[in-house]
């Protein structure tokens, strides 16, 4: 073993011949968390803790945006090959996404809430992390498995998980599992079944991503085989038969062609790199030979394979219309695997000067950026918005020592302390997301209060009819099934009893005389000062029906 001192950075580094894969563990005082995570039960517990802390904690708090709300609206309707939103088939909501939300809503009493769309995605995210960590454990060791899990769970993408950021974790579960199987076991039926699941959740784009990556990986064992393609083909045939039997052919065709209407996603690569923070910069360490040489052959194949997957997904997602959504999460998964494996090498030691410089440099940049943001923006928020004062003061108070730790680690060339600083940064990001971003989104951007304002006037589970399409997040927040009328006159053909109609003020004033007459129930201002009117037709309310029914017994 030779020791070098880098004169530029003042970093003391140790380089080892490539034959010495791992130093004797007893030589180093490993961080207790990492040492503790060595054995399987502790490793599993570690992953569970990480998943709970970063992903599940506060899992249903963020109010859903328009995309998740479409899923929520569909979960209030009957199961179909694709969802129904505002009473019409919605080709963007696939059955695989719908089923978990339907089940969750069923568990909550039948009416979907924001938890019905947020929790299944969170659980799918945890499952993806377990899949990645399991494979990494088997070929790179238990510690690497835990670190891969950390790089996945502790990323901004998994903390937020919102569909607005282009993250569809339900579909990604099938895609990532199929890719994991391809890289670990080759192109077999199990991989095909996962790809079929991905098809049912997201259509052909995830299957295209899987097929594309088999070409990029270029391994004979992971090629496009009939075992891989048969299950998704079968799923596509079965789904098509179902769709054509219950819905118009136009809806089936729209579901299949919808991705083609999208434009190239030029911002996919920076978006993915940002969503993978704070761990994505460490994936670049794989460029260092000393890092790669530290992995066993199988582990090296896994990491390089996942990097190939990430590269293929980023390239294809950027250039090919319709693939960006399906490619985003697999790309993030690939970067997480690479980053986790590289962090493990940094913890073990024995990497060259270049990778160490990059590792400490990236750590310093990340920590300094965060400290600047936390002290600047956090200081202002702490002074101006008392509601965030506690969170901001805590983050400022912790950011400065964390930055100090990073400086200290870089000065001493201590990879473990630098890693600890980045881990602290991931925790800070989670705290900032939970303590600032979520409440701010729910207050400023969410349609929740505006939708609930309308919903409280309508008896539980009673349908709200509309004359035009409202924002999906607003409609979902009402907490009622929402149906769009083809025309006002069609209201007469809906089920008997009072019917509630949500209209713009102008629609209410110009309500056709041929349509069932309406009585104004309440009016509401929207967030811009516009006016909405909730009206109802004549007829008994369900409470009346209940009482009359009991009286006639």
């Amino acid at each position, binding site marked *: 073993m030779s020791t070098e001192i880098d004169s530029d950075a003042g970093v003391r580094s140790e380089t080892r011949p490539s034959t010495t894969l791992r130093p004797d563990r007893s030589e180093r005082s490993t961080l207790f968390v990492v040492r503790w995570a060595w054995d399987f039960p502790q490793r599993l517990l570690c992953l569970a803790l990480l998943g709970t802390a970063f992903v599940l904690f506060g899992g249903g708090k963020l109010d859903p945006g328009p995309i998740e709300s479409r899923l929520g609206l569909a979960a209030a309707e009957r199961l179909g090959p694709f969802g129904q939103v505002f009473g019409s088939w919605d080709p963007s909501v696939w059955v695989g996404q719908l089923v978990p939300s339907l089940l969750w809503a069923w568990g909550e009493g039948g009416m979907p809430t924001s938890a019905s769309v947020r929790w299944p995605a969170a659980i799918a995210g945890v499952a993806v992390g377990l899949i990645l960590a399991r494979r990494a454990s088997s070929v790179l060791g238990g510690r690497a498995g835990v670190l891969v899990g950390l790089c996945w769970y502790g990323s901004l993408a998994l903390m937020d998980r919102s569909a607005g950021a282009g993250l569809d974790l339900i579909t990604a579960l099938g895609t990532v599992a199929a890719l994991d199987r391809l890289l670990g076991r080759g192109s077999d039926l199990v991989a095909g079944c996962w790809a079929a699941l991905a098809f049912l959740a997201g259509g052909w784009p995830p299957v295209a991503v899987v097929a594309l990556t088999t070409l990029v990986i270029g391994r004979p064992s992971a090629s496009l085989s009939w075992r891989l393609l048969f299950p998704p083909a079968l799923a596509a045939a079965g789904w098509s038969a179902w769709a054509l039997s219950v819905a118009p052919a136009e809806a089936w065709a729209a579901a299949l062609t919808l991705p083609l209407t999208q434009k190239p996603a030029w911002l996919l690569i920076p978006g993915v790199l940002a969503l993978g923070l704070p761990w994505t910069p460490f994936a670049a360490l794989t460029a260092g030979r000393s890092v790669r040489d530290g992995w066993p052959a199988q582990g090296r194949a896994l990491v390089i394979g996942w990097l190939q997957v990430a590269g293929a997904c980023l390239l294809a997602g950027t250039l090919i219309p319709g693939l960006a959504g399906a490619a985003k999460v697999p790309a993030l998964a690939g970067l997480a695997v690479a980053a986790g494996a590289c962090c493990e090498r940094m913890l073990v030691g024995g990497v060259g000067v270049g990778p160490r410089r990059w590792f400490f440099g990236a750590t310093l940049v990340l920590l300094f950026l965060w400290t600047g943001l936390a002290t600047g923006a956090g200081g202002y928020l702490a002074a*101006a918005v008392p509601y965030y004062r506690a969170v901001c003061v805590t983050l400022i108070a912790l950011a400065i020592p964390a930055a100090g730790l990073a400086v200290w680690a870089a000065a001493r060339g201590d990879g473990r302390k630098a890693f600890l600083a980045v881990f602290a940064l991931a925790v800070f990001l989670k705290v900032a997301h939970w303590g600032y971003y979520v409440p701010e989104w729910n207050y400023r951007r969410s349609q929740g209060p505006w939708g609930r304002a309308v919903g409280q006037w309508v008896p539980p589970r009673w349908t709200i009819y509309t004359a035009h399409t409202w924002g999906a997040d607003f409609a979902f927040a009402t907490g009622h099934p929402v149906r769009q009328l083809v025309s006002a006159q069609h209201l007469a053909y809906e089920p008997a009893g009072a019917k509630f109609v949500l209209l713009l003020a102008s629609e209410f004033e110009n309500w056709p005389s041929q349509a069932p007459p309406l009585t104004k129930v309440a009016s509401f201002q929207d967030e811009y*000062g516009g006016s909405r009117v909730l009206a109802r037709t004549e007829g008994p309310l369900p409470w009346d029906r209940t009482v009359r029914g009991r009286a006639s017994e």
Partner: protein
Amino acid sequence: MRTAIVLTALAAAAAGVGVWLTVETRNNRLVWDHFDVVKRGYLYRSGQLNPDQLRQAIRMYGLRTVVSFQIPGAGVEKERAIAREMGVDFVNLPMPGDGFGREDQFREVLKAVDDPGRRPVLVHCARGTCRTGASVALYRFERDGWTVDDVAAEMQRQTYREGWLPGYVWNMVKARPMPERFEPRFLHDQNLPAADAPSTSSGEGDGRPTSGLAAGKESSHVH
């Protein structure tokens, strides 16, 4: 040693900045106390702004009416003068600091916001929490139709912690969803034997629930 000195200097600098921020904030110089946008172009809220901040707010948001819930005194007079100088309406609605003002006072705010010629409106009290929160709560209930839970959450966000005001203001609201959702408002099955009349024959008081909606029986009342 050098690292320790750098870290100590950093910590001292951070502590100094923290103390300075705290003093400036306490003296109401650094930020607009509890300022927030309730609805852009309609209603804004804050604690007591100093004269410079008030002038800046009037200019920046094009305010046309300033409503103060403060007790009349030198501060209110100064604010009136600024409003006069800048050509905006000034309304003083003095009420106790806990926010339990009278309904007609809160409705003055709604009148100002409803009038396109008088809005945008800035409502403020001393800290922007109780009195301001109560007036904004009535606006949320009456105009936006928000639920009690959402209004209470908004008040909590503006650091109101006692929890009484949302219910107090809710009682002032004219249109509430209960009549629509809970009809009949009560159902009374008179199954007990009447005290001042002999018991009747079969059908009455036999323990079965009955309803006045069915046949107008005397033993049941639905309102």
